[in-house]
């Protein structure tokens, strides 16, 4: 029932209207707690105070991939079920994903400078995130290139799915490329066994950023629905205005 209800954009708008303030509040509270925890977290014995960058870097990097997942699901919705909200969701998610990927890159770069002495290293992980960023931008360019959102949606959905299949391959090949060229990578973020002192603030920040994404995504979807509504109203106005 719930899913069918949501299929109607008007009902969806009403739901968003109701849920959004609470989501925003939850985001703000979690973010405040997370920030407080991050500030209170001790320095790492190896990385010193720079470990604090991890608390914002890792959630962004995680979201960078998660958002592509959301877009892939939406793409399936567009192609298979032709769900009216699926392409709205995909379109609204793309700029958010690009922003999170950008932040992951920038914070990673600012973390790398004091740790490795360089802002950028063509390390396998960073390189794949950069490729992901380029793919996000390409997707946004595709959305922008076509005036009619319904037509753009199908093209973008296909590209998103192809990207989803390709991303692991890209990651894999970049790993290979990197080990071929540059054995014994010295770059290791954090460590496998993360102390609770770091793990708890990290998880809190992870939750906070996820909530932030959900909030922004719903708000952006609402804007997109309104924009499309305006578009169709204007088309009607054009048809009537000639009389």
């Amino acid at each position, binding site marked *: 029932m719930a899913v069918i209800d949501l299929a109607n954009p008007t009902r969806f708008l009403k739901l968003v209207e109701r849920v959004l303030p609470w989501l925003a509040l939850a985001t703000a509270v979690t973010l405040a707690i997370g920030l407080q925890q991050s500030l209170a977290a001790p320095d790492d014995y190896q990385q010193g105070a720079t470990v604090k960058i991890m608390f914002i870097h890792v959630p962004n990097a995680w979201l960078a991939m998660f958002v592509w997942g959301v877009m892939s699901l939406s793409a399936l919705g567009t192609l298979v079920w032709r769900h009216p909200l699926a392409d709205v969701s995909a379109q609204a998610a793309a700029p958010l994903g690009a922003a999170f990927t950008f932040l992951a890159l920038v914070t990673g770069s600012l973390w790398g400078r004091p740790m490795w002495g360089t802002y950028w290293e063509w390390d396998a992980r960073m390189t794949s995130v950069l*490729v992901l960023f380029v793919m996000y931008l390409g997707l946004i360019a595709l959305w922008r290139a076509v005036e009619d959102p319904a037509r753009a949606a199908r093209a973008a959905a296909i590209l998103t799915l192809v990207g989803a299949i390709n991303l692991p391959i890209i990651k894999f090949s970049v790993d290979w490329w990197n080990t071929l060229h540059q054995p014994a990578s010295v770059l290791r973020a954090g460590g496998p066994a993360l102390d609770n002192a770091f793990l708890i603030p990290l998880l809190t920040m992870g939750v906070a950023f996820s909530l932030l994404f959900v909030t922004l995504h719903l708000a952006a979807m609402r804007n997109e629905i309104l924009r499309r509504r305006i578009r169709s109203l204007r088309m009607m106005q054009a048809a009537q205005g000639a009389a």
Partner: protein
Amino acid sequence: MSALAALLRRDIRVALRVGGGALIGMLFFLTVVVLMPFALGPDLALLRRLGPAILWLGAMLASLLTLDRLFLADSEDGSLDLLVMSRTPLELTCATKAVAHWLTAGVPLIVITPALGLLLNLDLLATAAVALTLIAGTPALTFTGMIGAALAVTLHRGGLLLAVIVVPLSIPVLIFGVAASTAAITGPLSFGTPFSILCALSLASFVIGPFAAAACLRQRMD
């Protein structure tokens, strides 16, 4: 004057709105630069040495890629007829279109150059040098490329033909652009000489480009 302002305004608006391609060139530039380490290997010392050349190649290819729509779009929708029948001299019209194109396609390339310089491990001075040479050199790319764009309209064929026509014309710009940036980074030659030549090339193209393009458009047969 207001006629040219109207043309400038229109071209910039069309480029920036949905369906315009102002940012595609920037994205292409980024893609080319990201591609290079995969081919050359992630060796930072090597990338630093090749950095200016990579950035210049990327910028050149990106500006080429966006150039083919310069007159072709107007030709397809019939507004080129209007431009030709205008009381504004066709040379000025061409120059204005080139300026609009440079503002929407060339300037973004220069804006992201610092970020790309970071990826190629260029230091601040080197990045600044490349950006400066791009500011001086990309107008030359646009104004010589315009000739090719006008020819492409004459022959009803854009894309690769345009690249084949324009690339040889742009070789001097590439040579002196890279020479000036390398001179600024490593020496031993002075930065001033190649940079002056680059500026001279740009200035010359301001004169030659519009006249040649206008001549091509006048020759156009339908």
